[in-house]
């Protein structure tokens, strides 16, 4: 019986440990832990500071609960039993003051981190940021490069080391754009413009997604952020422009229809003011 139980215990332990061994870390590589830009790196840094503080918050509870419950078990008759004891000023101070102190300390950290990492705040840089206008559609992302007059669906190419300024709106319901390895998320809402500043510090392909449920194609509304060295970024723009595939009204109707884009799509030219047009378009349709 005992042996059986031991074997069962071991099997259970193995079962729990298995995913850790078999590439649990591979999942975390997709997240902020494997940050690839200054914003995400700073966010991870804030997390690390907080994590250390939180060890001291949870530690005492995690230790005291089992220790005190076990020590004062009813079968242990060797201990003091004070059924009428229910208050002590020193203890009271000990349980109120340290948490208050910790919260005050964390508030200072929170205040400064929130202002420093405000998504609306431009990143410090010598060059002006790359402007990208993002339109959330069902179930795809449209990225417009207003200065380059090109656009892409479900692919966002950016040059490494340059600050990027995303302006977001939605041509449909509310959505939320998240690129965990580069920055936090921000909502995209029809008739409104939100902002997000980010940058990539190394080349790579990073996962971007919508995190706000918006219907049947939600789970396929992901895109790649391709961070390229500046020459590679210029080549990418040249290639998109050379495709001779303008975002005309027919293409626009296709892009804004409720559908999943099976692969990224590129447009060599966009009508001027398209972002502003799409931002107001869905507020004109009375059915919506």
């Amino acid at each position, binding site marked *: 019986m005992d042996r059986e139980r031991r074997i069962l215990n071991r099997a259970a332990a193995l079962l729990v440990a298995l995913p850790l061994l078999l590439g649990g870390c591979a999942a*975390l590589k997709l997240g*902020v*832990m494997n940050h690839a830009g200054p914003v995400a790196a700073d966010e991870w840094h804030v997390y690390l500071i907080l994590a250390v503080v939180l060890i001291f918050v949870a530690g005492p*509870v995690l230790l005291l609960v089992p220790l005190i419950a076990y020590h*004062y078990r009813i079968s242990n008759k060797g201990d003091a039993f004070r059924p*009428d004891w229910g208050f002590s000023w020193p203890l009271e101070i000990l*349980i109120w003051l340290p948490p208050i102190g910790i919260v005050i300390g964390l508030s200072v950290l929170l205040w400064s981190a929130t202002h420093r990492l405000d998504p609306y705040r431009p990143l410090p840089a010598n060059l002006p940021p790359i402007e990208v206008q993002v339109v959330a559609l069902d179930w795809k992302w449209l990225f417009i490069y207003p200065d380059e007059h090109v656009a892409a669906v479900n692919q966002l190419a950016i040059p490494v080391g340059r600050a990027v300024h995303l302006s977001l709106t939605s041509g449909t*319901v509310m959505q939320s754009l998240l690129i965990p390895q580069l920055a936090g998320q921000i909502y995209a809402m029809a008739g409104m413009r939100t902002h997000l500043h980010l940058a990539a510090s190394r080349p790579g392909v990073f996962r971007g997604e919508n995190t*706000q449920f918006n*219907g049947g194609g939600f789970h396929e509304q992901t895109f790649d952020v391709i961070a390229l060295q500046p020459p590679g970024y210029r080549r990418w723009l040249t290639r998109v422009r050379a495709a001779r595939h303008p975002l005309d009204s027919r293409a626009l109707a296709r892009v804004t229809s409720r559908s999943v884009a099976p692969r990224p799509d590129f447009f060599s030219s966009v009508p001027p003011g398209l972002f502003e047009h799409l931002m107001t378009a869905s507020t004109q349709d009375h059915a919506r």
Partner: protein
Amino acid sequence: MSAPVWPALLGRFAWDSLPFVRAWQNPTINELIGAGAAAMVVVGVVFVVLLLTRLDRWRWLWSKWLTSLDHKKIGILYVVIALVMLARALVEANLMRLQQAVAIGNPGFVAPEHFAELFSTHGSIMIFFMAMPFLTGLINYLVPLQIGARDVAFPLLNAIGLWLTGAGAALMMVSLVIGRFSTGGWSGYPPFTEIGFNPGVGPDYWIWAVTLGSIASTLTGINIAVTIYKMRCPGMTLMRMPLFAWTSLCTAILMIFAMPPLTIATALLALDRYLGFHFFTNALGGNMMNYANLFWMFGHPEVYIVVLPAFGIYSEVVSTFSSKELYGYTSLVIATMAIAVLSFTVWLHHFFTMGQSPSINAAFGIATMTIGVPTGVKIYNWIWTMFRGEVRFTTPMWYALAFMMTFVLGGLTGIILAFPPLDYVVHNTLFLVAHFHNMLIPGTLYGMLAAYTFWFPKAFGFRLNERWGRISCACWVLGFYLAFMPLYVLGAAGMARRTQAVMETAYRPWLYVAEIGALVLFFAFAALIVQLWVSIRQRDANRVFPGDPWDGRGLEWSTSAPPPEYNFARRPVVDQPHWFFDAKRKEAPYAPPAEYHDIEMPRNSAVAPIIGIASGAVGFALVWHIWWLAILGMLVVIGTVIARSFVRDTHRIIPARAVERTERGWLEAVAKARPIPREIETSPANQGVALVTR
């Protein structure tokens, strides 16, 4: 969608509204699951009807339960609703976990729209039709007993609350059989739930089920608060009330102030959908941000509505099973009130990512962290309650210990989410899902189950099976860790919540572990049912009719188990907190009163069932645009209320002789029972009288 069958009579009902028809036309696994679920509802209802007919129990059900205004029976019916709905929502959780574990790089077996219905019903049920009825039932049952009252302040209102909740829950069940439910999640964010994007019946089911539930909770809140303010027995000052009564009061206050914003939000959304208004639409000046504010002005206090009663339960459980006074009663009361007030100041942290200024985000982030202080204080209060006590590891105590260890982890991730820059990264991901399950499973579910185990002997006169109780508890705890710790990792890895299929194979191992956890949680529920079954079969060996199986502290333990309809033959007079506990040690707690009096109790009433059924019919009719039925139902509700206001004869008298007979029977049982020491309280030797050293 095919054409409506008979629009004048059946509104927009069409044959393919029935999942059976859909499964017949298109027999995929996805449709068969839908038809299977519908069949389970139909078979369940038919089974119950046949059983009641066979046993000839219809009259009994109607006169003893459905029309009763006894707060104890209403409380039990609330808990029955909660357990039935828990079963359904848990099955849905298992389906979702299985789907995500299977659908890695492929579509799996549940279609996207169906998956969205699953997470929407799971969330809506767990909050509005599991947690809320469960805690409302417990408060209903316990608070009058704890404050020495014979009933709540407004018994009929109480029953109406029960029936409105039941009508909402019934709408949730009907949505399985006729039509489809909303795909907009439990929070129902527009514009996705607006007519332009979701013209079907789903969001309407959600609107009317939630509206019925929210109105019921508002009424309940008023009732509980007035009961506690006005119905306490002589000597029961506020600061002598058991902590559960205190947390019930705070929950009631929160219900009164937090439920109306929800009712308003769903009502405005209904105006958008039914009458072409533009409160939350994209067009004509509508603004979804107003909805987000209204919903979370309800939604955040709601978190504390469901968690505060559990804090009260843990206070009672830890104190009782440590054989010791609660440490820091006053500071616990202050902490509870502080939480209740602060809970109205943090709603914005549910949408840090909506683009407001960093100063606003930071202010709400700091307010959020501030709530952690009184909550942390509470945990230490329970720890110091065990300190220098004699701790007995019974099932409720295991729940309490598991809660303290697990809840603190959820608190940590709560602080992480309170940091706006960190929230930006994990908002809307599985990290958030893991966090709120980490608060609500230990914070609410464990508390409810601890209370169920702890007070079950009081309500039914026999103890629950301890062995199966511990098995169930162990599975709830193990299952929770297996199911939700992986979700923290997946959220930190950027996996969005509400994802029907998973495109990243790297998520696979964690989704497998979570799936195992979901199965363990399902087994935990099965063990709970087995426990109930075994306990009913062994009930004669475990009777505790004298009523005090755990050496309890509050007034509820000073009555028989189950208590008589009138609760107390003589209204108790107390001169200190835990009067009964001290009376057992100092004087004779079971002394018969000098004389017996007639007792006036509310007469049964069919008003609540009529209003409940008519309101449910109105909800159903509005969902399907069956206008004649909606008007008729509304007229029945209004007519019943008017007719009731003319009824004068609403009370009946229990004669002193009957009271005396009941009391004598009980006191004889008390005298005959052998008082037992705490060490053997979980054995059949426990007859419901505690051995105390004087």
